[in-house]
């Protein structure tokens, strides 16, 4: 297939309507012709709007209930499997467990089904708390303290700013949630790499006068972190936000690699 023929496939690549063989041809072509990627991005942008051309249909309540019951049962099963795997039973205990294994599994199955039916709402509420709870652990702060700060820092005028990693850590991404007139904001980051011992991530708010430290960002084992920023100036006064790798304890000015840098 010559170049012209492959370029004819580009619209159908954007529409995800190629055969497997044609798709592979296009992907090889794109790898060798970066200039064609701009065309694909434009066409894919248009194609990605197409789901919205279908008139939205409000799903019935039963659809979500069935899904969440299935999810809750799966979460329970995963938690049980994880707990079971973490145990190191002795041979004697294992023999005991073998005797009652079938009975226990039967009882557990009935109990789980019953619990799912009765506790779907409770499980959803627990999960909702864990949504922030996981991030809060990284900060070693109490849930109450953070909730109070979040309430203060999410007023009606809050805006959400997307943050992107630099070439040093291109997988990093996150958001800054802030009222531009406020002196505090919530920073949520994911995709950051693990640091060698003695290094930390430090957040900087940057204006015409240069970078000002906005705090140390603790990142969990999954590369996620959350930081409540506070500043002497309103957040809207700053031009950009950066995150750099610094020696343990932080620096007065950035000295290491900058891993996130985005305009505010």
């Amino acid at each position: 297939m010559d170049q012209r023929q492959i370029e004819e496939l580009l619209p159908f690549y954007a529409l995800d309507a190629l055969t497997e063989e044609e798709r592979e041809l296009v992907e090889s072509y794109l790898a060798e012709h970066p200039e064609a990627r701009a065309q694909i991005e434009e066409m894919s942008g248009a194609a990605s709007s197409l789901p919205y051309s279908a008139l939205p249909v409000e799903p019935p309540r039963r659809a979500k209930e069935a899904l969440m019951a299935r999810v809750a049962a799966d979460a329970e099963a995963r938690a049980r499997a994880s707990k079971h795997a973490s145990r190191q039973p002795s041979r004697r205990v294992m023999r005991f467990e073998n005797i009652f294994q079938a009975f226990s599994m039967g009882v557990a199955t009935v109990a789980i089904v019953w619990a799912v039916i009765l506790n779907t709402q409770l499980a959803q509420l627990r999960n909702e708390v864990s949504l922030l709870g996981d991030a809060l652990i990284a900060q070693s702060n109490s849930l109450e303290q953070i909730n109070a700060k979040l309430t203060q820092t999410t007023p009606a005028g809050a805006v959400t700013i997307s943050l992107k990693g630099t070439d040093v850590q291109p997988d990093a991404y996150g958001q800054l949630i802030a009222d531009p007139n406020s002196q505090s904001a919530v920073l949520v980051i994911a995709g950051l790499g693990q640091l060698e011992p003695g290094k930390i991530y430090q957040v900087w708010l940057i204006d015409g006068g240069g970078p000002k430290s906005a705090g140390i960002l603790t990142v969990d084992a999954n590369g996620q972190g959350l930081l409540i920023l506070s500043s002497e100036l309103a957040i809207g006064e700053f031009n950009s936000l950066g995150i750099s790798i610094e020696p343990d304890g932080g620096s007065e000015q950035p000295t290491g690699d900058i891993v996130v840098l985005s305009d505010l």
Partner: protein
Amino acid sequence: MTRDKNVTGVSIRIKNESSALRVTSEQVSDEILASQVARGNGAALETLYYRHASTVLAVSLKVIGDQAAAEDVLQETFWRVWRSASTYQPQRGSFTGWLFRIARNLAIDEYRRRNVRPPQMTVTDDADSILDQVADPDMDVAEQAQSVFKNRQVRDALASLPRMQRQVIEMAYFYGMTRQEIAEATGEALGTIHTRARLGLQKLREELERVEFEG
């Protein structure tokens, strides 16, 4: 629980015992929520469901044309998000692009499966209570309003395309038809189909830019 929702703004306040959590979760991006789902967080999945279920159901219904089957696709789509969120890579595209691709592919599979089988009688499930069939009152009103607004923008943009260009785009996207299948179905030359798809996407992009569409 009382709600005070601003359908045009970023912030949505819901006053209940977990208001701070709810407000924050609604401001977190889809991509961050997807990373939470990958860690087994059911609440993050539920928030994504509230945001996008109506569009997923709409796409499925448009492809399959059957409400019950479309609801099955809706559930299966979010189940796959739950099970496969760890495979989603934000740097390769938006979460909605990934989500809608899952839904569209499942719907097309179902559409094809139905079209190779003999037609079947529709069975009404009398066991469904009236409550089971009503719309979900917990769906996010603000997101619903945004979906309707986006729908109007994209429909208007598509309507501005010449009919034959629109037809090629819809046959390819919603029914997964290859360019050869479209040429055969329309009786047009393959080159004509190529031109219509390219010009149609170009015109669609221009129209969406003109109305400042945000996908």
